[in-house]
C-alpha cells in the first residue's frame, strides 16, 4: 500500500482534473481509473463563486482525496498565499507545490520551490513538491520538510515520456524510503509502466488522459499500466545482456543428421 504523509492510498495513479471534454467525462475517467487522489486548482472567478461551487460539489461527489495545487505561481509569496487559500477552501493540509521558473518549459524554480516548501512545512502543510530530477534539490526539499518528492520526467503536457531514465534511476537509488511520484511529462501508458518498473511509487498525470480520444478508456489503460509496472518491479526483472541466451534447454534435443 502506498503511504503518503501517513495516509494509506489504494491507487498508485493520481489524476489531474483539467482539460476534460466535459464534467461527465472527467467523472467517468476518475471512476474508471480507480484513482484515490485528484489534483485541483484555485482561480479567480466572476460568477459569484457559482462555477467554482459546482465544480467543488462534483469533486466532492467523487469520494476521492483532493490534492490542491499552486499551478501557475511564479514566485514564493504567490505560491505560499495560494497554498493557504487552498487549505481554506479544501480543508486539507496537502498541497502540490508548483513554483514555475520558466515560461516555455514550465520548469520549476527550484530555489523558490525549496524556500516555499520550508515556509509551508513550517505552517503545518504536507507538501508535494513538483521538482526536477536533481538529487541536490531533492535533498534540500527533504531538509525543508517534504516527505514526498514529485520529479518531472519531461515538461508539463509534453507527453514526451521519461527523458532521463538515468536521473530517475539515481533518484530512486538515493532515496529508497521516500515516496517518489513522477509528475509531468507522461504521454502514454508505456511511459507510466516504465517509471513504475524503475521502482517509482506512483504517477501523476492529467493531459495524457484528458486529451486522449477516449479519456475514459485511456484512464483505465493508465491504471493497468501503473499496476503492471509496479507489480513487475516487485517481481524482479531481468537485466538486459549483449548475447543471446537460449530459453529452451539444449540438453535432450534431437539430432537428425
Amino acid at each position: 500500500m502506498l503511504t503518503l504523509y501517513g495516509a494509506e492510498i489504494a491507487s498508485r495513479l493520481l489524476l489531474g482534473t483539467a482539460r476534460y471534454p466535459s464534467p461527465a467525462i472527467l467523472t467517468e475517467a476518475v471512476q474508471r481509473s480507480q484513482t484515490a487522489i485528484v489534483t485541483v486548482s484555485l482561480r479567480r472567478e466572476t460568477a459569484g463563486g457559482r462555477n467554482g461551487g459546482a465544480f467543488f460539489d462534483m469533486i466532492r461527489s467523487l469520494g476521492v482525496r483532493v490534492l490542491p495545487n499552486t499551478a501557475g505561481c511564479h514566485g514564493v509569496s504567490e505560491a505560499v498565499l495560494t497554498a493557504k487559500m487552498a487549505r481554506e477552501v479544501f480543508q486539507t493540509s496537502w498541497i502540490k507545490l508548483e513554483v514555475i521558473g520558466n515560461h516555455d518549459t514550465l520548469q520549476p524554480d527550484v530555489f523558490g520551490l525549496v524556500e516555499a516548501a520550508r515556509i509551508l512545512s513550517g505552517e503545518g502543510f504536507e507538501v508535494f513538491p513538483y521538482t526536477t530530477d536533481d538529487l541536490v534539490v531533492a535533498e534540500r526539499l527533504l531538509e525543508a520538510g517534504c516527505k514526498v518528492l514529485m520529479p518531472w520526467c519531461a515538461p508539463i503536457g509534453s507527453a514526451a515520456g521519461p527523458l532521463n531514465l538515468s536521473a530517475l534511476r539515481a533518484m530512486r537509488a538515493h532515496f529508497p524510503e521516500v515516496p517518489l511520484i513522477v509528475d509531468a511529462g507522461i504521454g502514454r501508458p508505456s511511459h507510466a509502466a516504465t517509471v513504475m518498473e524503475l521502482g517509482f511509487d506512483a504517477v501523476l498525470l492529467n493531459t495524457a488522459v484528458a486529451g486522449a480520444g477516449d479519456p475514459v478508456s485511456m484512464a483505465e489503460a493508465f491504471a493497468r499500466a501503473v499496476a503492471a509496472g509496479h507489480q513487475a518491479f516487485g517481481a524482479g526483472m531481468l537485466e538486459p545482456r549483449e548475447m543471446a541466451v537460449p530459453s529452451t534447454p539444449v540438453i535432450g534435443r534431437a539430432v537428425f543428421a
Partner: protein
Amino acid sequence: MRLIINGEAQNICANTLSELLRLMDYEGEWLATAVNGELVHREDRADHALDENDRIEILTPMQGG
C-alpha cells in the same frame, strides 16, 4: 471606495470583506479570500475592514493538473 478586486479596479462602497462579498453576490463555502496578499479566513471576513485601494483576491475551486 476604489478597490482592486481580482485585478480589476472597481468602485464599491463596502465597509468589510463580508459586506463586499454580499454586494458582489458571492456565496458559498468554497471561497478563499485574501486582502493585500494576506489570507483572510472565512470567520474573519465580517471583522475585516476595507480601505481605499485594497487589493482583494477571491478564488474558487477550478480544474487543475
